[in-house]
């Protein structure tokens, strides 16, 4: 009985909610139309990609494109198992996870040191870390391959991920966040004589959950989307990642298998897209922290 009553009131409040929403929707009809129109245009390339990925590969011509085709399943099967995308998918997943965990983990340690330790030249150390932002892969492209060879890291997961472990953005944001944690919190930890790693695990990390989730998402998407670096150091197809595999699917000459390429593109974009949707809130909070 009680639960039934509860359900009724819940339903009633939902009804009130939907009517309120309908009312608000009716208030700005022009604005909603403009927004929907603009966002459909923005999403059109992706919508078309999904549709084309279901089309028979060799028959595609502009007239048959605008609809769901008959080859959806077979295109995906073919690209996954014959064009090696299943392997690339696993490699991309391992790479992005390792980069995200490595970046955030190492940044947590660095931020802990920068905020809670009495160290000399802190500002200089911070600048040293921050200036790595001005050194993206293209600036280091020539010697990086040689360094990988001398470490025997070419064609390896280590070579793919370790150079990405330094994260100026994560260190900066975590440092900022730690500094905003109230002194009383820190004081009690100090009085209890808690060691630094315990302090990190039991106090700082629980208090930074949202930011860690956001930084993880940013780093995962960033890692997943890397193209130039895997292109340089991986030439063994069993070690290759999706982004490069996708580009290789696109032949410069000969008949292109459009349906297959689009199925490959969908596989390549799916996971970061889902992750972004799932962790939307911490991601948005963390990204926008950068200007503060």
């Amino acid at each position, binding site marked *: 009985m009680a639960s039934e009553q509860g359900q009724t009131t819940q339903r009633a409040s939902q009804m009130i909610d939907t009517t309120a929403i309908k009312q608000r929707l009716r208030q700005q009809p022009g604005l909603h139309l403009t*927004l929907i129109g603009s966002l459909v245009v923005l999403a059109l390339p992706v919508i078309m990609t999904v549709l084309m990925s279901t089309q028979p590969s060799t028959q595609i011509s502009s007239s048959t494109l605008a609809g769901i085709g008959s080859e959806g399943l077979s295109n995906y099967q073919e690209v996954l198992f014959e064009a090696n995308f299943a392997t690339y998918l696993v490699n991309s997943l391992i790479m992005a996870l390792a980069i995200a965990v490595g970046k955030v983990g190492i940044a947590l340690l660095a931020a802990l040191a920068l905020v809670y330790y009495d160290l000399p030249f802190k500002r200089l150390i911070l600048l040293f870390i921050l200036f790595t932002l001005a050194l993206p892969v293209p600036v280091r492209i020539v010697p990086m391959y040689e360094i990988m060879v001398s470490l025997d890291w070419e064609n390896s997961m280590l070579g793919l991920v370790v150079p990405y472990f*330094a994260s100026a953005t994560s260190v900066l944001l975590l440092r900022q966040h730690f500094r905003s944690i109230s002194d009383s919190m820190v004081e009690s930890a100090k009085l209890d004589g808690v060691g630094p790693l315990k302090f990190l695990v039991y106090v700082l990390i629980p208090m930074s959950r949202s930011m860690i989730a956001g930084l993880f998402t940013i780093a995962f998407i960033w890692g997943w989307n890397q193209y130039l670096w895997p292109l340089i150091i991986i030439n063994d197809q069993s070690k290759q990642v999706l982004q490069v595999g996708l580009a290789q699917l*696109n032949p410069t000459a000969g008949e292109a298998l*459009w349906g297959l390429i689009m199925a490959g593109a969908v596989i390549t974009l799916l996971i970061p897209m889902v992750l972004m*949707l799932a962790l939307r809130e911490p991601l948005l909070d963390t990204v926008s922290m950068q200007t503060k």
Partner: protein
Amino acid sequence: MQVYRNRIQGVLLLLPTLVVSLAFFYWPAWKTIRLSRVRTIGGVQKIPNGWDHFTALATSGAFQYSVLASFVFAFVVVAGSMLIGLYLSYLIYRVSAGQTIYLVAAIFTYALSFAVTANIMDVLFNPNVGLFKEALMIATQAFGIQFTFDHTTNPLWAWIFATGATMWKMIGYNVIFMMAALSGIPESINETARLDGVGTVRLVTRVYIPMISPTLAFLAIVNTVNAFFLPFPVIQEISGGPSNTLNILIYDIWMTYNNSVIGLASAKSLVLFTIIGLLTAGQLYLSDRFAHYGGT
């Protein structure tokens, strides 16, 4: 608040970040400087070459074009993606129902890679079978305009194609920041503006844009830095454009590197580094300045 006094412990915690920065950022950057002053024979033997690469680059018309093209490319994509981003953000900011859904639909390009962007745009605008290319042809022919929508032969269309694809990909990132900044505007300001009967254009140009100007300044710099190297897959997809008209710096470096002209590629990398370094320094300076005002 400083809790721990053991300096060795502190340094140990910093060590992973410092070692990775040193080994994979500063050391290769230093080696790039050294390599820019050598010439290679047969891809192996290195001979001192002084400043010759730089003097050659300074007088090379092709390289000057490459640098100029990089700046024009960056300017077009940054201005375009910021304007579209501002337009979408303003609409989403004003809407009172369904804001979250609209926001998600506006920022999805953030999760896409440039490699995926390059690939799907190349198929959709493909000169032979591209659906969007067909649509554009039909639309322009209806107005009696003859235009070749082929990015493999028409340099102008190649530019529009590459900057357009890059712009599209960059919109999501801009909307994230702009929405965050707009939501920070106090409701009382909207109220006052409404009571004073301020028009939309005035409201945007005189109130909103000045109020979110720190974010816009940040975005202008970060987007520009990104525009210098992230669109590489887009340029590679069209092989530098018809007769190399889209040979922007990052693609030029890649081609030189790929041809094993190590010394020259390093010199070109340093030119790119100088540009990105100055922009990054500007960004750090800006964020430092604004941090003293309203930052948390």
